[in-house]
């Protein structure tokens, strides 16, 4: 394994791991404050219990997200010092703001988790709301920085040195809006469906649990709403990519040759050697329509670009297929549930539906990882598109397979432990208050 590949693998693995916990930190607090709202407004004991259970899940996931995020802020320099040496100042504004948002998120979370008996109920609820808002803000700022790597803006170059940085222009770069919108909705969608799956499973065991019914209703409402909106935000993102990052669009869609009336491919295999799609289902005109809202629009193909600037086409193609496949499935499922609920005026809990929800639980998170694969692998060979190649940004440090091994092992253990811990929580029948539990555990 070359050091470059090891560095890329470590970065991909660290980001892929962190993202799962980061989205939990962005979406779980919303579920938590909705449940607590029901308790405060209606005095519903089950809602209080649910809010407390969800807040424990949030605490576990947030801690793993926080430390893996800390690691990332160093790994950027450990693995890509040349990238950070040039880009650090330019993307400094979103990272600085993210620092504050994350700080506030951690403060509000401390107040929320340990403040049940210390704060007035509504102040406590506001702290929870603060966790959610700051979590979403942190996510948005970090994605702004990532968007800059796709569409670098806000600086001038003079003899290879960065001069005249315009931090706000860099932060609000062309890709920022569509990427942030897509990611925030993705966080709510993937976490909403993952949580719904857990409570659907619990309902299959005990159909009459009020707590799990309420949990399912709240998580499905959040996740389902996001799922129905997501294709629209996806279209905005696709529109942006078509106009600004045509080579990424071509790789996503397996579109090899520039053409009018471009078709959309489903399945099959992108044969890079022969520069053609094989065995795919073609939908005529659809790519031209999706990209430019015109069935006859010309869409640039991969062969219009130098061969050494192509990203790994099959990876990007399949990742995109997985993302939109799951996205469509979850949107359809959400509409179906909404229709059933509207017709019956009640939360549908038919066993077949609950089983479907359980099976679909992890899919949102899979789509999330696939989406990040599209945008990150689709940017290769560049780390900063058009300016700095990934291979030129890597550290000179030898033996990078070692830290790769260390972090992979570490994250594997943390992932397994987090999941088993959450599993124990889900089915714990009665849970004492947080303070009580801290006491019991140490005693």
């Amino acid at each position, binding site marked *: 394994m070359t050091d470059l590949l090891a560095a890329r693998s470590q970065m991909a693995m660290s980001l892929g791991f962190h993202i799962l916990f980061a989205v939990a930190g962005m979406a779980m607090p919303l579920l938590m404050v909705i449940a607590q709202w029901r308790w405060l407004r209606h005095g519903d004991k089950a809602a209080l219990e649910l809010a407390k259970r969800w807040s424990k899940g949030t605490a576990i996931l947030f801690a793993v997200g926080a430390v893996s995020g800390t690691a990332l802020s160093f790994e950027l320099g450990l693995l890509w010092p040349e990238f*950070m040496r040039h880009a650090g*100042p330019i993307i400094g504004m979103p990272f600085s703001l993210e620092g504050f948002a994350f700080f506030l998120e951690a403060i509000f979370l401390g107040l929320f988790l340990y403040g049940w008996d210390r704060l007035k109920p509504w102040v406590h609820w506001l702290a929870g709301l603060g966790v959610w808002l700051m979590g979403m803000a942190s996510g948005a700022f970090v994605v702004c920085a990532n968007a800059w790597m796709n569409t670098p803006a806000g600086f001038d170059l003079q003899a290879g040195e960065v001069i005249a*940085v315009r931090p706000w222009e860099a932060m609000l770069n062309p890709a920022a809006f569509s990427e942030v919108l897509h990611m925030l909705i993705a966080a709510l969608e993937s976490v909403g469906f993952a949580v719904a799956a857990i409570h659907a499973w619990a309902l299959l065991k005990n159909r009459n649990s009020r707590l799990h019914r309420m949990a399912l209703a709240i998580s499905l409402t959040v996740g389902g709403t996001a799922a129905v909106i997501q294709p629209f935000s996806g279209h905005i993102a696709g529109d942006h990519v078509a106009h600004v990052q045509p080579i990424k669009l071509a790789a996503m869609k397996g579109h090899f040759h520039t053409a009018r009336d471009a078709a959309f491919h489903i399945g099959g295999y992108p044969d890079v050697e022969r520069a053609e799609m094989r065995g795919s289902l073609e939908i005529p005109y659809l790519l031209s329509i999706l990209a430019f809202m015109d069935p006859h629009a010309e869409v640039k193909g991969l062969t219009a670009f130098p061969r050494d600037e192509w990203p790994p086409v099959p990876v990007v193609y399949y990742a995109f297929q997985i993302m939109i496949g799951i996205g469509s499935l979850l949107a359809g499922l959400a509409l179906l549930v909404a229709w059933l609920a509207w017709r019956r005026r009640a939360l549908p809990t038919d066993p077949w539906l609950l089983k479907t929800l359980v099976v679909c639980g992890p899919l949102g998170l899979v789509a999330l990882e696939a989406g990040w694969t599209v945008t990150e692998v689709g940017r290769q060979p560049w780390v900063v598109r058009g300016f700095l190649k990934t291979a030129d940004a890597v550290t000179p440090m030898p033996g990078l397979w070692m830290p790769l091994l260390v972090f992979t092992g570490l994250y594997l253990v943390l992932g397994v432990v987090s999941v088993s811990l959450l599993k124990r929580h889900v089915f714990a029948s009665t849970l004492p208050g947080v303070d009580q*539990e801290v006491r019991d*555990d140490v005693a």
Partner: protein
Amino acid sequence: MTWLDQLTPALLVAGVMTASVVLYALTGGADFGGGVWDLLATGPRRKAQQRAIERAIAPVWEANHVWLIIAVVLLFVCFPKAYAAIGTALHIPVTAMLVGVILRGTAFTFRAYDTGEGASERAKGWTRVFAITSTVTPVMLGVIAGAVAAGGLTLDAEGRATTDFISAWWAPFPFVIGALTLALFAQLAAVYLALAHDGQELAEDFRLRALLAGGLVFILAWVAWMAAETGAPQLKARLLAGHGAWVVHGIAGGAGLLGFVTLWRRRYGWARAAVMLQTTAILLGQAWGQHPFVLPPNLTITAAAAPDSVLVPVLWALLAGSVVLVPAYWALYRVFRTAGRQAGD
């Protein structure tokens, strides 16, 4: 007028970074120190000690930890050359520190939120991981700071680190600084915990530990001074130069002595102030010793700094952010200030 004229945006950012490092030591550092005393919990009140530590850390450690993130973000935004050089030449200790940070935080949380069958058995394992990583991580932080201060990080004409990845940190001086950092953090934690349990038997346990750690700080500070002779001669020379340097040393030494006296007399409120002042003075002393370099021996703050078009907006963002952050952080401490005493038993 004269020194105000020299107050460039780069220097201001360096000042803010120093402040966040000081705040990290005083808050997050003490959280690590708590882990050290968890590892070394002994005597008839062993369980009570561990419980007190857990209760003190739980609501605040994640927020305290963000001071480190703020400092790092400011480093890569405002002094990217220094950040890139540290990431390259100190890859190994930084990685070790990160593993410690990751395991410390997760072990603490896993222990606090474990439930169901076998939870108390697993808690023992998590306690071990939490305590060991709380001890190793501060040493690594100190090694990184010591290696930077010693002046082993050099750059080529292009601004890339010239390094064999080992020699900049694998030396006595950085590890002495690592040990000193650990002792300081442990002392801070012991003093805070003694104050939180003032009037209880538990306070006696932490008083004794604070005195021992304080003694260790004095010894290690002296050892560091000796090791600097060969390990960081430039730093030592700068630490002896000028009145300002001696004022900072005087405050550190004086506060250290005051810490001993007040601990001895069980005046824990005063002891806390003294130990906080001592830690602050030591860190400011190091910052003073490094100034005007961000990476001694030749990368100055001015040369390493990003353009003013970056620094000035960041300074404004820091100011605006602080307006929200400071009251929130203060509220967090205010709400949990009495946690130790109320829950004491």
